[in-house]
């Protein structure tokens, strides 16, 4: 198995090599913006500076007049999951794990790459008050499912508050994700709070049972281990700070409720996902050190989005909350750079702070900021080259590197199109001929 894996990796596109991107405007996000070069060695950023000597044998990317930013990180995505987004049968399926449904062939990965996204946080939908276990992925298009996983990123657990979990349980309401769902508790915000408290109460008891067992075993007493509960295990991990809470919520009251539930059970809300009304309780969120991952300007598509404002991110940032701009959408994720520009428009944050909201801030929220999110020596060489200022609507992604390997190259994409089109025509022609032959064959011989 290990040999096979090594073989697969060696066949991956363009093994990481020493390369240098020259003459670019480099927006490091954490260390200012400069005109100069980025040197990449062994998949890592080796050096960033105005003048860097080109090592012998290094590949040179001339980026005169172009811009380089850290790879974009989308902290809320449902791509690459083969549509397995909501479990939906019970309100708290915390045992389900998106790791089990990673689809490395989802074309969404390539499209995201072409939009400058190098890392995503893939999570469940919001039909369940506890949706399941999340995973952080790199957009290493062409690798297998294992190859997409961001090694060492802390695991998460998705929670959801408000209309979506309660809708799934309300027979008079519209059903969840387009399919009919039988009535299911909870059907109100009160019930959502209760469902979460019930789960953590069970998890606490379960944690205590195990603690008791381990203490007895350590003392050499005879003890029977408790029955393992896969639903409660991840909740215990949350209580022990080993798994991060990513909580979908919209209105201020439910976000505050979740903060207090966390206080009561002694865990931390890592990130509020969406948090469209988070601006109303920025103070309380900042006090608890929770992050907010929000949309730039979505509003009015449902009742709980009526007080959504595009100034949300700017207010939160002003009050000291780490804010990221996410997509939750296979299309929107392709231009998170201009979504960030909207935060400059609505609330007047600086260009650098806006860019941080799609790079270093989501990296902090996903606790991968030691590896990615800015252009600094020692970090992963996840880089995006744009032809123009990436906060302009006129900018186009030219190249995307992950771990120092070029995964998207617009020049190659464009020059390869004719061949791909020809191949498609050939396949269609072949299929047409197959059909003709089948029609000519006597019936009853095909199966």
């Amino acid at each position, binding site marked *: 198995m290990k040999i096979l894996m090594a073989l697969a990796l060696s066949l991956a596109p363009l093994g990481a090599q020493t390369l240098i991107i020259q003459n670019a405007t480099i927006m490091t996000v954490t260390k200012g913006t400069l005109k100069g070069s980025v040197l990449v060695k062994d998949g890592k950023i080796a050096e960033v500076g105005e003048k860097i000597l080109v090592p012998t044998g290094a590949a040179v990317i001339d980026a005169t007049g172009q811009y380089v930013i850290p790879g974009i990180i989308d902290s809320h995505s449902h791509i690459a999951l083969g549509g397995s987004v909501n479990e939906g049968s019970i309100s708290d399926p915390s045992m389900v794990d998106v790791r089990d449904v990673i689809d490395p062939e989802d074309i969404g990965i390539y499209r995201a790459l072409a939009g400058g996204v190098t890392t995503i946080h893939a999570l469940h939908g919001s039909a369940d008050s506890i949706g399941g276990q999340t995973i952080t992925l790199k957009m290493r298009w062409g690798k297998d499912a294992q190859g997409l996983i961001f090694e060492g990123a802390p695991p998460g657990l998705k929670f959801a508050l408000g209309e979506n979990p309660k809708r799934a349980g309300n027979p008079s309401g519209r059903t969840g994700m387009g399919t009919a769902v039988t009535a299911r508790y909870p059907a109100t915000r009160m019930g959502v709070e209760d469902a979460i408290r019930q789960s953590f109460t069970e998890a606490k008891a379960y944690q205590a049972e195990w603690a008791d067992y381990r203490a007895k075993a350590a003392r050499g007493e005879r003890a029977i281990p408790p029955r393992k509960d896969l639903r409660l295990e991840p909740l215990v991990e949350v209580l022990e700070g080993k798994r991060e809470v990513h909580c979908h919520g919209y209105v201020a009251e439910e976000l505050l409720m979740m903060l207090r539930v966390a206080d009561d059970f002694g865990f931390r809300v890592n990130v509020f996902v969406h948090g469209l009304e988070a601006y109303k309780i*920025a103070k309380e969120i900042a006090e608890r050190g929770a992050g907010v991952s929000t949309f730039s300007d979505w509003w009015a598509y449902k009742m709980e989005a009526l007080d959504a404002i595009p100034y949300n991110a700017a*207010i939160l940032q002003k009050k000291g909350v780490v804010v990221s701009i996410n997509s939750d959408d296979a299309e929107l994720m392709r231009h998170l750079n201009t979504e960030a520009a909207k935060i400059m428009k*609505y609330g007047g944050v600086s260009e650098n702070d806006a860019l941080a909201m799609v790079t270093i801030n989501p990296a902090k929220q996903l606790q991968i900021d030691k590896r990615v999110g800015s252009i600094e020596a020692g970090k992963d060489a996840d880089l995006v080259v744009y032809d123009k200022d990436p906060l302009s609507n006129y900018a186009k992604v030219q190249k995307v590197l992950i771990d120092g390997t070029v995964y998207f190259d617009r020049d190659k994409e464009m020059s390869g199109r004719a061949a791909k089109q020809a191949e498609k025509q050939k396949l269609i022609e072949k*299929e047409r001929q*197959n*059909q003709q032959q089948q029609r000519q064959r006597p019936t009853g011989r095909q199966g």
Partner: protein
Amino acid sequence: MKLFGLMLCAALVGGAASNGAFLIRNADVYPVTGPEMKGVSVLIENGKIADIGPKVVAPKGVPVVEAKGLRVYPGMIDSSTALGLSEVESVRETVDTGELGEFMPQLRALASINPASEHFPVVRANGITSVMTFPALGGGGGRGGSGARQFISGEAALIHTDGWTWEEMSIKGNAAVHLVFPSLGRGGRGFGGEMPGIPETPAETGVTGAASQARRTYDEQIATINRFFEDARNYQKAKAAKSLDFRTDLKYEAMLPVLEGKIPLAVSASRATAIHDAVQFAEKQRIKIVILQPRDLAKAAAELKEKNIPVILGKVLALPQNEDDPYDASYTLPAEAYKAGVKFAFGSFDNQFARNLPYQAATAVAFGLPYEEALKAVTINAAQIWGVADQVGSIEKGKWADLLITNGDPLETQTEIQRMYIKGQEVDLSSRHTKLYEKYVKRP
């Protein structure tokens, strides 16, 4: 948020003029229909553009808006929204699009438009001074309802995004009748109303049985539409002939402006087959049409150009239709339309994201559309397509003073719209969003 108002100094001299006149002084004016004019002044009287030029001065007592270093553009037009008809998309009670009934040309979007909708201030703050409001967002049959097939959803209205009543907002209350053309294809979200899951050609799946069934249904639907038009024609003749047994019929009455060529039939048709058949249908019926949200332009463009049929392009920031389409297929569609010589304007086909219409146009520029064409597609082209180019869509003498004063290119997100005028009246740029911002940013 900066206080933009302070940057401009309206020198009010002895109160406003009685005809609402004012002068925008020393601006860089982008009329869209002509070259940029640097350092000129625009005189507005009675809500209309009275004069433009370097030597134009304010008559005595007429207030002046200093605009040195700033730009003036015509207000932008979104050629497809449901603004005023739909407030909170998921709450049925706030949504008035998608009536029941197969042929409902008599339904008027205009008279159900809520001028106090929270959407109007939000949308206009980004430079959109007029919109087309369509009576249906999908195939009809009521939102989230039975999914019943709807062919004609009603009359779309071209309105200003400001006004005390829908009457005051109206530019052309009946600008088009909306037909959702049947389709064999997959895809077609939003206005397309197309049926999913049916292959367009047998070769696409090899499932010949399903395809021929779909083809039969499609042909029947087109026959149904043709019958309705023939009945409308007969009604038109009977009315003209003042025949004794003539009775007024509201449906056919509403079809007369289309049959007489006074207004276009706006046809939702996304895929090549549907577009081609819609064009054939229009020829046969001798009516003007505008195609809404075409996707397969590569195949359809030549015919559209030849027949001089304009199109309203949908969201530029959209996913490609098919898995194996180039990743930027939606981004390059406007450039393809331009190269093929097809006349087009942009529509957001949305309420929530209508305010991003200018940025969608900018993306088209990034992917090959000449900048001037993008600007035209949100201004003069839309005005021409909807038959109101004598009133809006450019900065020309005699047109409504629908104007933006900006500090830069209005298609760029970061540009500030500093002032806006609709029919020569300054428009409040605050909205539900700015008000909530101001309230909560002050929370101790």
